[in-house]
């Protein structure tokens, strides 16, 4: 049971922060199918920064590890910049832009990782080695039966994610900026009439989604393989999309969805092991989160309300 919780959380939380990214972008009215590409590019950027920094400075990796999270956010934001330009400036179809950015991200990271490793680090490779992310256990809390596992052997980044998530929730639901973002997703013209700058709000929302996805992607890179490699594109971005749609574009319910996905996954692994099923049954177990989502959506879809202006190109002239 402990493993289910520990592993479940270490999967759920990065997923959650990516999903929050999605909520920001879509909450402001810009469809974002590019999360997968954004998280990959963020992880690439973080991995690259770690490779460079550790070669230049050496020394204590801990600081570099945290720095790489920051760089991953920058990387995600950079690629998100492209999505923002495409959707806001060039008025491209947002769904298409998302799909293409995913393709671009895969091609670009593979190309750059190879090229950079070969030309700068003098070794052919498409990955960047990372350090293990520090883990911690909170002394007393971890003793509590069952719930204790939450405080046991967690990655420090889980704390960071929770902190960031709380901050993002605060920003979205309590501050004027958040009000404007939500207004943009519902009726951008209302914001414009109230003197807000729709393009700017949307732009920063998309950038934020990139930064958060980058953060999540980097955490996946650390927790799964302690490397950046093209294997990072495992479809977690799409899962995050499912999570926030499931959570009806609200941060609270989305958190629950992510926890559900994470526990279904880690629980599945444990189940297969405990029942001594052949490993091929793992495939069936892995379908659990998806089937659960589908079934639940059957019941909740009618009440599921996407932001009203989602996917619409904002045109001041249009009424």
């Amino acid at each position: 049971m402990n493993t289910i919780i520990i592993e479940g959380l270490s999967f759920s939380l990065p997923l959650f922060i990516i999903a929050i990214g999605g909520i920001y972008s879509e909450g402001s009215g810009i469809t974002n199918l590019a999360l997968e590409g954004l998280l990959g590019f963020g992880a690439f950027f973080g991995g690259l920064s770690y490779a460079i920094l550790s070669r230049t400075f050496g020394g204590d990796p801990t600081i570099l590890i945290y720095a790489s999270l920051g760089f991953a956010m920058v990387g995600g934001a950079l690629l998100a910049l492209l999505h923002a330009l495409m959707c806001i400036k060039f008025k491209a179809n947002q769904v298409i832009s998302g799909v293409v950015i995913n393709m671009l991200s895969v091609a670009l990271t593979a190309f750059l990782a190879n090229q950079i490793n070969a030309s700068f680090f003098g070794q052919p490779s498409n990955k960047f080695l990372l350090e293990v992310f520090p883990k911690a256990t909170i002394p007393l809390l971890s003793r509590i039966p069952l719930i204790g596992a939450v405080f046991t052997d967690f990655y420090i980044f889980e704390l960071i994610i929770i902190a960031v998530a709380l901050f993002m929730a605060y920003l979205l639901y309590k501050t004027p900026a958040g009000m404007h973002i939500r207004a943009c997703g519902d009726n951008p013209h209302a914001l414009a009439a109230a003197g807000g700058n729709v393009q700017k709000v949307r732009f920063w929302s998309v950038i934020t989604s990139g930064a958060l996805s980058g953060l999540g992607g980097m955490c996946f890179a650390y927790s799964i393989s302690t490397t950046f490699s093209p294997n990072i594109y495992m479809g977690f971005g799409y899962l995050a999309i499912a999570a926030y749609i499931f959570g009806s574009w609200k941060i609270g319910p989305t958190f629950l969805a992510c926890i559900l996905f994470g526990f279904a996954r880690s629980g599945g692994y444990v189940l297969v092991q405990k029942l001594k099923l052949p490993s091929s049954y793992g495939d069936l177990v892995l379908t659990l989160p998806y089937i659960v989502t589908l079934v639940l959506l059957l019941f909740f879809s009618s009440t599921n309300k996407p932001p009203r202006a989602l996917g619409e190109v904002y045109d001041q002239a249009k009424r």
Partner: protein
Amino acid sequence: AGAAEKQPLAEAGLNIAIITTPSGVDDGSFNQDNYNGILAFVKNHPTAKVTAIREPSGDVAAALKAAADVVAEYDVLVCTGFQFAGIGELAMENPNTKFILVDTYPTDAKGNSVELPNVYAMTFAEQESGFFAGVAAALETKTNKVAVVNGVAYPSNVNYQYGFETGVIYANQKLGTNVQVLELASRAGTDVTGANVGGNYAGSFADEATGKVIGQQLFAQGADIIFVAAGATGNGVFTAAKESNGKLKVIGCDVDQWDDGTVGSGNIILTSVLKVMSLNVERVLNQIQDGTFKGANMLLKADTDSTGFVKKGGRNQLSTSTIQKLDESYALVQKGTIVPASNFGGFTPEQFKVN
């Protein structure tokens, strides 16, 4: 047709291509070692040049198509991996191109294994390398529980697994250890004949997440040394080891994986066991250059120094006594006194008898 128009070899130098499966020539292990062999050759023959070609899908048919796409361009094609077994047909149609095939023998259109004059196919006695890993693990474990994690139950992987298990059994019988090899029932492998071979198989060479889960599960059951022969999946096991605060060590495979094992100022690599492909690839290229090339299907073993383990200082964490005992076993393997179990060796590790 046009193949005859190629330049005489001596003047232009060999034009070499290496075709790999998705992980590419920079996978830090199997493919890269082959590539290094070519690079070594090119370094000594500056007129020669090499092109690395990666087939991105990993599909068998796609692998062959990639080879066929470029075959006319090159004097030598180095094909690394099981996926290229079907190359036989292509080789027959392009007799002027030499093929170096690693880890498998060529098959014809009907799937029968064949020997061809322009194909040098090498496979390795991975069971020997696995054996060294098993002995090393048995000697170094503190919990008396060790394990082996593999990717897919291809013969090469089963050989590693069987060799490892043989090594542990050998150590238990002859070197005074009492070590158990852990297996997760849910991870038993099925070899190419469909037989259940046990072991811990991730089912893929590229599934880091599953690799990590297996590593953690084995660690949770008490293993403190894991032999990892699983390609990129192995990275996941490495991660599990790196997160264990030094309690879990791994033995690398194919090449010296020391550099992949650093964690902080420490390292999780106990040692790596080798499959010496680079030297053999370079040797065959030299033969092509000299004109002494002959097609063959070769099984390479310790007697040609094609298998082994890392004992170089600073690249392993074996104790001196372990290294000494390993050296002794190495000599016995070289001589053929010890024959570890292998996928098609006719006996399983449990049936292994020390002569």
